[in-house]
């Protein structure tokens, strides 16, 4: 758990630290995805220190990204070189600073800027709860950064295949668990 020197408010359905409470069956499949995403976040922190500088106090915040169609949620802790991403079942996500929910396609489009965040929020396509200041910092930092999805996964060739395989497996498991969820 990263330290929380600024005392960011945390809220959520369950108290306590965020463990990795995926069912034993799924845990080995989620782990590679987590490693890949966390690695990418830390790589970004090294390549683009300006983005993390912009985050300011929000570096110690915890963002929960919850795609509507997915039984999983992504827990992002952007704390620079200690940045990590955890994948958790949506019911057991632990405390967070800010929770962002919406259709996965919209969340991804938000990230690369092809969907205007204000428009998405006002049109209620994306729903936000919790600390708005932290989210504002994340939004403004990403906005200024001119990142694309590929920046989040700029992996050496050796890691790309396993990463893609892990992602495909996750999707298959998701489809098995929630067959009526629709396309991801």
């Amino acid at each position, binding site marked *: 758990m990263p330290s929380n020197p600024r005392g960011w408010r945390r809220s959520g359905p369950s108290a306590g630290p965020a463990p990795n409470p995926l069912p034993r069956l799924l845990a080995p499949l989620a782990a590679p995805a987590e490693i890949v995403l966390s690695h990418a976040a830390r790589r970004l922190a090294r390549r683009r220190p300006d983005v993390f500088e912009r985050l300011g*106090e929000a570096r110690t915040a915890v963002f929960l990204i919850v795609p509507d169609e997915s039984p999983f949620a992504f827990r992002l802790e952007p704390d620079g070189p200690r940045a990590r991403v955890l994948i958790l079942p949506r019911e057991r996500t632990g405390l967070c600073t800010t929770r962002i929910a919406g259709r996965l396609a919209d969340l991804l489009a938000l990230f690369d800027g092809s969907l205007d965040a204000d428009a998405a929020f*006002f049109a209620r396509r994306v729903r936000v*709860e919790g600390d708005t200041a932290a989210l*504002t910092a994340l939004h*403004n930092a990403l*906005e*200024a950064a001119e990142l694309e999805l590929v920046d989040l996964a700029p992996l050496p060739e050796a890691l790309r295949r396993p990463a893609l395989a892990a992602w495909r497996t996750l999707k298959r498991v998701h489809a098995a668990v929630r067959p009526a969820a629709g396309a991801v």
Partner: protein
Amino acid sequence: MVELVCPAGSPAMLRAAVEAGADSVYCGLRDATNARNFPGLNFSPKELAESVEWAHARGAKVLVAVNTFARPGEIQLWRDAVDVVADCGAYAMICADLAVLAYARERHPGLRLHLSVQAAAGTPEALAFYAREYGVKRVVLPRVLTVEEIRGLADGAPVETEAFVYGGLCVMAEGRCALSSYAAGRSPNVAGVCSPPEAVTFSEEGGVLTTRLGGFALDRFEDGARAGYPTLCKGRFRAADELAYLFEDPVSLNAMGLLAGLREAGVTAVKVEGRQRGKAYVARVAGAFRKALDALERGEDAAPYERLLTDLAEGGRETTGAYKRGWR
């Protein structure tokens, strides 16, 4: 030729604005010295210097806002900001506080001074005061004036004038509004934020979204209804047994249709609000106003370009604000 002044919340946004046709861009430092002090927004001194160089190489001017009012006992932060602006080679500094103006006049007499809308200078006497005492060269006019009133001010004024034409509308006299600090402890005047994000909460229950500032409910949106950021003056309140948008509907300013009138009234520059709105926003707005202004220069109508921007408006609706008298 009327100057088009566009917002820049980041170096990326600055580039987008200039590339889309802005003549000038305005920005701020990443602290309380400017009135858009949102987390993650604005420029470091290094980014500012680099952006000034980039913009000047393309013939665009950079204006830097140090337009909040300094905190007592902490004036050094504002003086440092003035020094940064003077050093980076920006075209002008936009300010409002007498303390900032006095320091600039004393320490950096060559620094061009523009008066922010936060100074609420809306009479010939006010304009004359700032011009005479501090050598202010341009005044950004309060958004509560009509086009006729602007014409009256611009005519024979000792300073250039700049008028807002697009973006978020401030209903109250800017720089003199304490609504935000009453509810949430921070206002644009000293802290540089209105309806600060840390005091905002959104709560959803049974499909109904309630927005609050400092615990005070500001609006409520039924399932799927298009929501808005809980800016205080845009809220819905109860008075005399009526629940209504007492101060202003959550709409945006779009005075493109009045560009010709403003041009005739003698304004030097037109300004787009929205440093916090992002690159895509500024590219579209700058592009549309560039086309409109160029059309006016050619003696054509700007009307065809008005509808280019409607979907960007908050609440999905627009207004010409105070510019036409009927608004009062």
